[in-house]
């Protein structure tokens, strides 16, 4: 099993969610995060005082899937989240050692 974590632009969340449900992904966790990549920050002024904006709001989408689904999930998220402009985000894939459905106690692939 793998945990696929994607950092995406916040306004792309609905597109990504639809794309994922189209390929049969049944569960997803979303967190509000801030981050930056290779771009340097820019400065803004508040009442004449400069402040640096480098952390930009992003959304982290996490889905737990079987090994075989990983490529499809990556392709689906990439396609939905891409704008072609700076800040589109990244996808990370983690090894998932265990998964459990709390209500029924199922574990492993049956819990996904």
């Amino acid at each position: 099993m793998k945990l696929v974590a994607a950092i995406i632009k916040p306004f792309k969340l609905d597109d990504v969610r639809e794309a994922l449900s189209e390929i049969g992904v049944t569960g997803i966790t979303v967190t509000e995060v801030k981050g930056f990549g290779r771009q340097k920050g820019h400065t803004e002024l508040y009442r004449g005082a400069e402040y640096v904006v480098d952390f930009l709001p992003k959304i982290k989408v996490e889905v737990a899937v079987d090994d075989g689904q990983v490529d499809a999930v990556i392709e689906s998220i990439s396609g939905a989240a891409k704008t072609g402009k700076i800040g589109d985000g990244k996808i990370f894939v983690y090894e998932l050692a265990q998964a459990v459905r709390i209500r029924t106690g199922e574990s492993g692939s049956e819990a996904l």
Partner: protein
Amino acid sequence: MEDILNLRYALDTFYFLVSGALVMWMAAGFAMLESGLVRAKNTAEILTKNVALFAIACIMYMVMGYNIMYPADGNGFIPAFDFAFMFGGDNAAADVLAQDPAAWYDGSYYSGMSDFFFQVVFVATAMSIVSGAVAERMKLWAFLLFAVVMTGFIYPMQGYWKWGGGFLDAANFQDFAGSGVVHLCGATAALAGVLLLGARKGKYTADGRINAIPGANLPMATLGTFILWLGWFGFNGGSELVLSNVDEANAVAAVFVNTNMAAAGGVVAALITARILFGKADLTMALNGALAGLVAITAEPLAPTPLWATIVGAIGGVIVVFSIIGLDKLKLDDPVGAISVHGVVGMWGLLAVPMSNGDATFGAQIYGLVVILAWTFVASFITWLVIKAVMGIRVSEEEEYEGCDVSECGLEAYPEFTGAKGSGR
């Protein structure tokens, strides 16, 4: 004839009461404005300050402030005051109606209680100016202790010198609704406090950089500004003190219009100034601009034409932007711009009076300005010093980082956003 006199008395009393109620509503405006411009972790504490100072002001003014400011007698410098007001009493109808109708407005033409009500909300306004300037790092109870002294003594004394018929009034110093007596006074008390308090941690760096500390809730700050704008119609409008004849009704209407135009001028001027200086429209500057316009016209909202009132407000709007930047350069940390809006522009308001009011002189205006400034600064500075020695005025460094809400109030303004309440919702 008696019917008319009854009606005049009732109308002018009603007018005082409604104007006073509008000015009371400004307390909500200050609360919203200040809580919107501070950080989330300090919001509940500044709201507590605003609620409590209003209550303290009402009580101290009732106990002694009103009598100091409007004594039965005095030598022009020191009022011969008593503690009579809190024991009640008002004009007897028979006495009122026995007055000579031809000299009606020289006598008792409205309720004494309504006079107190109208005046007490002004002292609360002056006091609430201080809370914004010292926000995010002052101890709550130290502030409230200062409020007791300010509303019971410091403000009433200089109020007596002008509106109570004291020596400033005799010197022809003009201040229709209080650019000096209320706004400059409040801002000067704030300045004395800020000098002894120091800046927020992290606001200024040793190498001269000024760090931005953005406010947590701009919708509330905007709401607060509009509430203050509305309340100001009572502040300036009520200060005409009479409504019940054609000339006075016209005067009140002119005051309302001029007050509104000055605010409008202030907004536009501040917005454009901020756009030119910073490249973008700074909402907080626009809000300060509205208030600056209102403060600027407060010393003389009757005499100007609507056009001139707009210009007076606009000049206030330009001044306030530069003053806010200037105070930061002097390392005087004022989170909401109170000293700039009420103090610096308050002085402009006083000096603008002779430009539309032929009875005023620059000399008398400067005289009044200096007296109010000096008295309030010295009295406030001493009071702050004593409080600092007795209990300290600044929260500890750790409390400042944690936020005054937790350390001073034991609760949070936005517990579900900041998560201290836990994820239980």
